[in-house]
């Protein structure tokens, strides 16, 4: 297809604002799929995605549309993950496009995620087509939505298309706007092929299937191409597009979108956002490439220690389709052998854990998540630490910096006070407050990433009775008074509970952990001291009193054999427990604490 007749676009929206329904509707209207083939939410292929209403992975889909001007256009819908945890993926996908549909729910208005995604689209200089969706709902407020478009997102309201994806209203207008408003792709003037590999998935037979957008030249089977960032040359085996099932094409030309395979065995061999070019006559790299760096780390351990190899295999399988997920083996005295896992953010972490549990049936326990701290040492060197176990001694540390996020919180007016209190409790600062409409405000604030890891989202939901929403983008590092909190049982540190916390919060966290440990450590034949300590200083203490006795029963000749067997069984059981300061603690106790902390 001629570049002048190609349009590449994405759809950006807040969860539940109708992105998937609109995608399906577009596929249907263009005849790409017949109604009878339409499964609800066709593009979201994983159960988990459907359930949570978020898209983690989706293929680009090619549609042919006959416009009112009589010409046929190739429309490539490049879906994006709907969450900023995946903001790099989002921006890679967006950079494969020239335009984006921005969906706003007419009843709900602009939400936090809308703001974050529009920011990303603007950074990529995409043409944004605002679509006010769900106008058929009884409490749809179109005027309000238009006002928010202008006030919050600075997009002229008269550009908005009114639609109901569910009822099929406005679909034609949207397709026309895509053709009319979104610029056609233009060759970049480079000497040869220049394509962006913006995503990939793993196919058992074909190996890594890379999603590509051709910016210049053409991509054909049989070519030898060079992956500039991965530093590798491969022979292209097959190229094609999706409709939405993959189909083979002769070649992909300027502006076109599809996939290529090249006998690449591991997704690790292809970097997300790589530039693909002709190896004989390479073009320049495309702008915007970044190495993916996990932002959040957590230890994942099998509950049943014999599942270690099994877990390792399953993590490997997950990684095949999720190159942003990294893991390496580590061990903990308390939890045995497991893996240190890196994630792009909170949702990513939750999704991986949930998939391990549900799709792979793994019984796992995750340690308290940690962000990556930058530690500036007194000798002038710099370290990155994501695991409390590797935190240097305090006297070698000059300062510590922690990652911040710019968070957008939207909440009903009546909860502003509580919301400000929450943000301040989370060591955040509200930069500015905007009125969205008569009911809602948006608070933009700078908050340490580690503070939003655990319960921030849940707290927002509970403070606002479900009406608040939150999204964030990564911001810079900032100096913070972070300390390593150790939990000790009879003087011996329990590694699974060590954590890096802000000095002001160390004491309360230490106390909470000590209290929880006291609940789960069974009384022993001697007193057990549970302490929280920073450096050498104790900040929390609980005591598990000793059992007063363990025997007052009689035992004569006929009882000895039976009793011995009973005691042997107990002894065997304790061998499987972890011992800290000569206290035998069942693994379930650790798990109990990790579950509730």
């Amino acid at each position, binding site marked *: 297809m001629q570049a002048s007749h190609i349009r590449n676009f994405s759809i950006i929206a807040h969860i539940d604002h109708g992105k998937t329904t609109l995608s399906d509707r577009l596929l249907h209207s263009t005849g790409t799929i017949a109604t009878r083939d339409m499964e609800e939410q066709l593009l979201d292929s994983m159960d988990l995605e459907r359930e949570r209403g978020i898209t983690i992975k989706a293929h680009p889909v090619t549609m042919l549309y006959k416009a009112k001007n009589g010409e046929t256009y190739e429309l490539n819908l490049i879906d994006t993950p709907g969450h900023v945890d995946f903001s790099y993926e989002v921006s890679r996908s967006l950079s494969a496009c020239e335009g984006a549909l921005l969906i706003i729910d007419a009843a709900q208005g602009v939400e936090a995620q809308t703001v974050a995604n529009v920011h990303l689209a603007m950074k990529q200089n995409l043409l944004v087509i605002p679509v006010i969706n769900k106008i058929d709902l009884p409490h749809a407020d179109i005027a309000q939505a238009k006002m928010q478009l202008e006030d919050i997102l600075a997009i002229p309201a008269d550009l908005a298309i009114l639609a109901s994806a569910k009822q099929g209203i406005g679909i034609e207008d949207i397709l026309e706007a895509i053709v009319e408003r979104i610029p056609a792709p233009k060759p970049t003037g480079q000497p040869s092929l220049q394509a962006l590999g913006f995503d990939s998935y793993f196919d058992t037979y074909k190996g890594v299937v890379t999603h590509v957008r051709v910016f210049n030249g053409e991509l054909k089977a049989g070519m030898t191409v060079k992956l500039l960032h991965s530093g590798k040359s491969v022979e292209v085996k097959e190229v094609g597009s999706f409709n939405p099932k993959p189909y083979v094409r002769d070649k992909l030309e300027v502006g076109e979108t599809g996939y290529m395979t090249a006998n690449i065995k591991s997704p690790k061999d292809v970097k997300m956002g790589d530039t693909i070019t002709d190896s004989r006559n390479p073009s320049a790299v495309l702008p915007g490439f970044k190495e993916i760096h996990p932002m959040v780390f957590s230890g994942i351990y099998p509950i049943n220690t014999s599942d270690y190899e099994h877990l390792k295999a399953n993590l490997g399988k997950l990684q095949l389709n999720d190159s942003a997920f990294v893991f390496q083996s580590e061990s903990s005295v308390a939890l045995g052998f497991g893996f240190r896992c890196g994630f792009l953010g909170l949702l990513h972490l939750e999704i991986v854990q949930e998939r391990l549990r549900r799709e792979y049936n793994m019984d796992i326990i995750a340690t308290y998540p940690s962000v990556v701290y930058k530690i500036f040492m007194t000798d002038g060197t710099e370290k990155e630490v994501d695991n409390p176990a590797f935190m240097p001694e305090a006297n070698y540390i000059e300062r510590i910096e922690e990652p911040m996020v710019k968070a957008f919180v939207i909440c009903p007016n009546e909860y502003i006070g509580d919301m400000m209190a929450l943000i301040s409790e989370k060591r955040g600062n509200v930069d500015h407050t905007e009125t969205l409409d008569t009911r809602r405000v948006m608070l933009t604030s700078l908050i340490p990433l580690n503070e939003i890891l655990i319960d921030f989202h849940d707290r927002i939901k509970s403070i606002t009775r479900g009406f608040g929403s939150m999204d964030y983008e990564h911001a810079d590092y900032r100096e913070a008074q972070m300390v390593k909190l150790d939990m000790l049982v009879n003087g011996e540190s329990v590694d699974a509970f060590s954590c890096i916390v802000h000095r002001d919060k160390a004491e309360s966290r230490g106390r909470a952990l000590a209290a929880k440990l006291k609940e789960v450590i069974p009384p022993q034949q001697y007193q057990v001291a549970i302490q929280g300590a920073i450096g050498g200083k104790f900040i929390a203490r609980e005591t598990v009193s000793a059992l007063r006795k363990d025997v007052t029963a*009689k035992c004569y000749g006929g009882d*000895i054999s039976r009793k011995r067997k009973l005691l*042997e069984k107990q002894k065997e059981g304790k061998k499987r427990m972890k011992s800290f300061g000569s206290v035998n603690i069942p693994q379930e106790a650790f798990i109990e604490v990790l579950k509730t902390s």
Partner: protein
Amino acid sequence: MSDRSEPITSLYVHVPFCAHKCEYCAFYSEASNGEMINRYVHALIREMELVAHDLKPRTVFFGGGTPSILTLRQWEEILKTMERLNLLGAEEWTVECNPATVSADKARLLRSFGVNRISMGVQSLDENLLDRLGRIHSREMVFKSFDILRAAGFDNINLDFMFAIPGQTMDIWRNTLREAMAFGSEHLSCYEVIYEDDTPLYAQLKAGKFSVDEELACAMYDELLTTVEQGGYHQYEIANFAKNASAAINDFPDRACKHNVNYWRGGSFYALGPSAAGYVRGVRTKNWSNTQMYCEQLERGLRAIESKEELAPLARAGEIAAFGLRMNSGWPLAEFKHRTGFDLQDHWQPEIRQMLNLGYAQLSQENFHLTRQGLRYADWAAELFLKI
């Protein structure tokens, strides 16, 4: 190690019959039936004949069940057999009695053949609790039976008591202890109710009919230790207390049950009767529990052994170490070495150190024993010392 050529010096005989089975009892016993008891007596005599050549009893213990349920004639048969087989003359010969089945002529008969110690299962002196436990005797019967035994010439009597019985208050326990002291028996055996599988009491506990009050049980144990000490008894094992002629005690008090001490110190003993568990030269045996099966085997001239178990030498030593620590005097190091062939300090060094560090044990040149505090955790100590 015991010498292969020396005969075994300890004998236990199990009498598996009761007038009524108690709520807490997991011992093998069955309701009495005259015909079956006769058959049992003959099988027992047969069993005695099979082992007598290897026996020269210093201690004998008839336990149950209820040995005193046997009739005068049945006792006569057993005692005469023992006489014939040269099994009389034990230094300590105990027969367990239920206060409801003690009679003057039975007591005289036992005494005349050399029985010199009676162990009476009193359990409680509170009528309601006796009822609760399913005991068939009354308070009155206890007092009466005790007098009968004394009159028959028994100067070494043990009384069994239980505490932490569901429904037992601290006041009831104190009263029972006070009355127990007044008997002036030579020996007391006092222990917490245990809830064993397959007992009605356990079923009631599981069904939530009552709950275990751990604090109260501890307080009752403390009360017990204080009261019996004031009453002139010396604790020599977790649940056993005995009188001593003088204030100084050598290893254990004079009136300690030597038969039981042999158990805790890992000595050999033959055990006869249904379900009886013996330990002869390192081999533990258990007889068939079913009385009919027991009888059938012996009627064919065979021992009625259901199972045998022999531990490897170090494991056996671990077991011996473990159970010996139940005694206040613990282990004389030389005796342990002599009995097991292993040196306690060499093979259990970390365990000994751990107990010493906690103040739960004491070690001298000659002896290792748990302290008063440590004895409360004797099960844990036993667990530590077992070798698995």
